[in-house]
């Protein structure tokens, strides 16, 4: 079944939002889950974040950053175009219930991933505080949408162009300190680059605050067939696609995750060059 693009937005440089027809996925999607998209017959299967869904319209909204050939190509598609395959929802849904006070940390495109979670946590009666970060102010996404859902929203940018000049973990450390004498924090959820998630885990570990991260390891089928997304949780091999993508941050071996994400680096640039040269010819 082809999935038509019915809306597209350039969110910020290199980041796109597309809304596609996927009634079955919209019906079943729960925060924390993801989809796998294949653009065309020659395309690879790429896992993507679902930022929103509309059961009435039968659509899902995908937000992605251009990181390689496939996401670049996806970014060239326009309203009226379609992707060949979109399978999902995949992965286990997040645990959503009333925890109390929850801090949600989103970095880069991870903000898109954490957005439906923030909404569900707020709906469940939690006091949700969000910290969102990006390299620079122009790369911050969904700030307004998140602000209305959360009791407090903090921004951090690496270059100081907006909010705190520095990392989300600086803000997190201060906040956890502030809340120490006023009820504490029940749970921290962090979604973003692995380095960021590792830093968050390091902050909360000694404070014994339950911390959840969503792992973006390399995936192929997304159904537990290939083992490509294997991650090591407390030394035990788990598959991010069917056992995750969310795991207890304090048990994740981030070094392996970060290392394994590099596996196809060279191939990715080869694909990119091939694509660019072909696109050049077409012009």
């Amino acid at each position: 079944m082809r999935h038509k693009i019915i809306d597209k937005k350039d969110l910020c440089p290199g980041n796109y939002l597309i809304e596609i027809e996927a009634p079955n996925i919209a019906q079943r999607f729960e925060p924390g889950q993801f989809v796998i998209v294949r653009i065309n017959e020659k395309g690879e299967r790429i896992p993507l974040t679902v930022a929103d869904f509309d059961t009435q319209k039968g659509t899902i909204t995908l937000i992605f950053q251009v990181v390689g050939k496939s996401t670049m190509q996806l970014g060239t598609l326009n309203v009226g175009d379609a992707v060949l395959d979109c399978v999902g929802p995949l992965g286990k849904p997040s645990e959503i219930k009333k925890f109390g006070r929850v801090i949600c940390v989103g970095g880069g495109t991870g903000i898109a991933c954490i957005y439906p979670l923030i909404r569900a946590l707020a709906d469940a009666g939690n006091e949700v505080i969000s910290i969102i970060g990006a390299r620079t102010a122009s790369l911050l996404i969904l700030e307004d949408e998140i602000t209305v859902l959360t009791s407090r929203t903090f921004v951090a940018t690496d270059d100081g162009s907006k909010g705190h000049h520095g990392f989300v973990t600086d803000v997190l450390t201060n906040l956890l300190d502030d809340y120490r004498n006023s009820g504490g924090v029940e749970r921290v959820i962090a979604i973003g680059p692995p380095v960021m998630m590792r830093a968050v885990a390091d902050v909360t570990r000694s404070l014994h605050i339950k911390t959840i991260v969503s792992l973006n390891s390399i995936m192929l089928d997304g159904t537990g067939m290939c083992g490509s997304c294997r991650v090591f949780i407390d030394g035990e091999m788990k598959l991010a696609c069917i056992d995750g993508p969310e795991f207890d941050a304090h048990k994740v071996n981030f070094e392996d995750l970060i290392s394994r994400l590099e596996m196809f680096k060279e191939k990715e640039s080869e694909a990119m060059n091939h694509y660019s040269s072909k696109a050049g010819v077409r012009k």
Partner: protein
Amino acid sequence: MIQIGGTRIAMEEQPAQKRIKNFCSVPFGYTEEEVIAEAQRCIQCIHGPCEKMCPVHMDIKAMIREIVARNFKEAFLIAKKDNAIPAIAGRVCPQEEQCEGVCPFFNTDNGINIGKLEAFIADWAMENGVKEEFHIEERPEKVAIIGSGPAGISCAVDLRKYGYKVTMFEALHKAGGVLQYGIPAFRLPKDIVDYEISYLTEIGVEVKLNHIVGQNIMFDELRKKFDAIFVGTGAGAPQFLGIEGERLKGLYSANEFLFRTNLMKAYEFPEYDTPIVCGATIGVIGAGNVAMDVARGAIRLGTKDVYILYRRTKKESPARAEELQHALEEGLKFMELVNPTRVLGNEDGWVTGIELLRMKLGEPDKSGRPRPIKIEGSEFTMKLDTVVEALGSKPNRLFLDQTPELETTRWGTLEIDKDLMTGVEGVYAGGDAIRGNATVILALGDGRKAAQSIHNYLLRRRK
């Protein structure tokens, strides 16, 4: 001139040096004259041992007689009667353990080449648009088939012939299961698989891709919507040894390696998007058909040195004789009596080698093969860039976790009764989902048997 017995008609093949540069079929298949000459060698044994050994009991003798008489259409229909996909079975069945293995000429390496005869007539039918003709009398009951591999295909075809409305659910973007993602094109050209799948749609089977039962469509929903269910989910989950170093880059499960190369066509990267990283030296752990498929795929991807690392010897290899022979011709290096103890890596997290323990053969174990025994202190290392674990696979827990009502054995396969019914009424299962790692032909047989059982069940229920 009719030549009874005599020498097996040689099969023209792509020469090894040429075929290691492509993913095209290794054998070219018989010509009409060759197929007739080969068929004429059959002495039509009265007891038909080949038919008895065939897991689906094809009427092999009758098929051969029709080939001799140049009635290819008749021969095709005879094969098709018992076997939903002869073009595929003819290519991937372990004939030497079945029909050909009991041929009176087998001992002199001149057994009738039944597999290639079967493949010929099926290919002939495909090229000439010859199909089985049957009239479908529609029945109101609906049956769901979970999985579009060989078991599901065979079950779907038969159920459709009985007149049931059949919907097939496939998790991936392409139907065919292991025929599609697992078996490489040089062994089973994908146009053949595509043809069989298109035949399903032609006879009215609804094929739903990207539907993962237990994940984005629930088993309970199927039970409500369908009158019966066939579970043909195969054994698609990889197994790892659990040794040190499996986190390293450059280590794959056989499933991942095959999925990338076959289904995603990584051998045509970057024209196709999916990459595969394969170094100059690769070690494949295991010596079954899947290991051979990986090894031969790696050779075609340009890997210089491809080693099979096996704890027994070549003689005990569970691979089909033809695959092993082809692999050796293509330059595979078979390392016998070694058992991996850990995978070695560098500080960047890439595989650099493997540590192996030497083994020796002991008394036969339950499988009848000599048990491999560790030689303590015999560890040695070898340099490798890539390691693939081809240890066999097990049923996917994604489905099983969602269906606690279906009982499983300790190997993760589904419990079934003699009619292939699971513990849940109206739910049947077959193929690797009940057998673990078995063969295409056994899956075909199960699919057929389950279809018969489902038919009986639905008839009983009507009364």
